[in-house]
């Protein structure tokens, strides 16, 4: 085993452990996670799944763990841009802020901060906390997990309003902050819930957010998740998401990634019983030298399960994006339908997309499709719009927006869709002149 103190992040564990929640069982879990990192280390570009995403600079950077960082309350005055009609939980640099959160929750829904849930009964969460994950960053989260959310919907509970988890990241000096939020969502039989996870980087933030999320959808449950990652230009965000779907369960995940120095999301979905279905939609906007990597891994373990992956990237400057979409179909998992589409728009010569489908099919009665496109703005479309009196910049923005809108329009909740539209428009020039062109406006 390496000298633990010399491994990135791990060295700070002894300073922080006194601040972390949980009894002996959790401590054992944390130590095991540290040992795993010590043995296997962090991924390098020699690892096939990290070939295009280099974490070496992130590992060299110095961060202060969230429990040790201080953050004057005044700092967050005026941060009020997430006014959705939702039950809301707000975290500032990884620390839960009850004063910014709403507390009236409907019957059948339990929401606890992770710290409270761990203190109460960590072992009840064993299937989630102790889940095997092939990721050093997920292990790092397990070792340091401090704050987060446990959401439990009792059988049959149908949540009218979505839950909104807001993770605000603000500049912290001299050292930026590393946070390890942990989110656990358990939807009982026939329960239905929607939650939004917003990761908003405020200007100047250089923080690192390392999220782990678990979703369990019991028979007939429906879970819809929107992850909105609006990272500041110097921020890093790594997420490891695992969803398990039982019979007839539905999981829909939308990811909207706007910027970030390094963003990497791994989403694994296990369709473990018949007729479970998943839709993974993604939109990536990156500019400058931003880097966004999405790795999807859908595993059809049971017959008659369905999956749909639709990702779109819009890249400008020297930005780089990665899309890796894996679909695994187990032997005897017959009557499967699996679709995958990766469409990419490159707005500059130096932008780069690496898109890779990975299909592993061990059953013979399956319907699978996959397709990838990489292109520039269509000159014929631009000319057509200009020939009708639309100026060149507006025409460009309009076409970029229309490309993005193919994903945005899949977002079911109107107010959330509008918020995402606004966030995307905010990145485009001539936003005001194109707002009226969208289908939504009609």
């Amino acid at each position: 085993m390496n000298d633990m103190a010399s491994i990135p992040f791990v060295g700070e564990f002894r300073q922080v452990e006194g601040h972390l929640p949980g009894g002996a069982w959790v401590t054992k879990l944390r130590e095991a996670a540290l040992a795993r990192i010590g043995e296997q280390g962090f991924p390098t570009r020699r690892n096939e799944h990290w070939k295009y995403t280099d974490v070496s600079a992130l590992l060299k950077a110095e961060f202060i763990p969230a429990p040790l960082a201080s953050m004057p309350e005044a700092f967050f005055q005026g941060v009020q841009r997430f006014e959705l009609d939702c039950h809301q939980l707000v975290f500032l640099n990884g620390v839960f802020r009850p004063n910014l959160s709403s507390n009236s929750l409907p019957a059948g829904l339990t929401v606890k901060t992770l710290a409270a849930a761990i203190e109460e009964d960590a072992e009840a969460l064993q299937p989630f906390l102790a889940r095997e994950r092939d990721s050093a960053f997920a292990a790092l989260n397990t070792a340091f997990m401090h704050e987060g959310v446990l959401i439990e919907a009792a059988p049959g509970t149908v949540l009218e309003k979505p839950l909104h988890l807001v993770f605000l990241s603000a500049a912290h000096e001299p050292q930026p902050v590393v946070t390890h939020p942990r989110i656990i969502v358990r939807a009982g039989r026939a329960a239905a819930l929607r939650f939004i996870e917003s990761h908003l980087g405020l200007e100047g933030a250089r923080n690192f957010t390392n999220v782990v999320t678990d979703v369990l959808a019991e028979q007939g449950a429906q879970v819809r998740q929107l992850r909105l990652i609006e990272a500041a230009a110097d921020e890093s965000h790594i997420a490891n998401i695992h969803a398990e779907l039982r019979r007839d369960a539905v999981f829909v995940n939308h990811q909207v990634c706007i910027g970030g120095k390094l963003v990497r999301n791994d989403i694994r979905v296990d369709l473990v019983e018949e007729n479970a279905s998943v839709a993974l939609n993604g939109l990536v906007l990156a500019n400058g030298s931003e880097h966004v990597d999405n790795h999807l891994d859908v595993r059809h373990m049971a017959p008659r399960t369905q999956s749909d992956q639709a990702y779109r990237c819009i890249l400008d400057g020297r930005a780089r994006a990665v899309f890796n979409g894996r679909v695994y179909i187990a032997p005897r998992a017959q009557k499967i339908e699996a679709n995958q589409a990766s469409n990419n728009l490159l707005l500059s010569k130096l932008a780069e997309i690496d898109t890779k489908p990975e299909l592993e099919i061990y059953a013979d009665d399956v319907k699978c499709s996959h397709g990838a496109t990489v292109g520039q703005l269509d000159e014929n479309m631009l000319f057509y719009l200009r020939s009708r009196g639309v100026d060149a910049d507006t025409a460009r923005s309009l076409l970029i927006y229309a490309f993005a809108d193919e994903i945005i329009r899949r977002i079911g909740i109107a107010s959330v869709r509008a918020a995402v539209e606004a966030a995307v428009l905010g990145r485009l020039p001539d936003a005001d002149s194109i707002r009226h062109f969208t289908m939504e406006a009609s």
Partner: protein
Amino acid sequence: MLKIDNLHARVEDKEILRGLNLEVKPGEVHAIMGPNGSGKSTLSNVLAGRDGYEITAGSVRYLDKDLLEMAPEERAREGVFLAFQYPVEIPGVNNVYLLKAGLNAMRAHRGEEELDAADFLMLVREKMKLMQMDESFLKRGVNEGFSGGEKKRNEILQMLVLEPKLCILDETDSGLDIDALKVVSQGVNASRAADRAIVMITHYQRLLNYVEPDFVHVLYQGRIIKSGDKSLALELEERGYEWVVQEAAA
């Protein structure tokens, strides 16, 4: 209104227009006919300002301004309209909002106030009725999923709403069945006005049965080699282009 003088244009290394002359006055309807490869589409693209054409000689004056110096959107705002031979589909961009943006850009250019939503919708509905287009067009993306005939009708609808001064119709009759041709022709005839000129570029004479031109020109190898009145179109229909070519060579 439009004066094309000795226009030479090339695409990559190929010279397509080789000394084209044409003068169009307000109120006139011109038909430009010619065999395939004579430069018909190049002419309409050059007039509308599409990239990829190099003007090597000559000039185009429009309302006493240098048309070739203007960006495509400036030309549109000054009243030049091209009805495309192959209108492009633009999913996600609403048909009617494009129309509204175009119209308001033109009005702003002329120093007029924007049309409010209700007046605009009334105007569009009235023109849609003329073009026999149903309400669903209001909701759809630009040409998205339209049939060939619907696309052509949509072009003429745009022309009716935008009320340009110079209308260039590029092979608007191609791919239309007889009923659609009648509807499209109705739209074009409704556009005829004393202060508006129409240039129809066409391979066949059948559109001219419905929209009677004042002048007919034969375009061949990048030049107009013969001009006449509408009887020339009928003669071309009957005898083909060969005799005109031989006559011009003699």
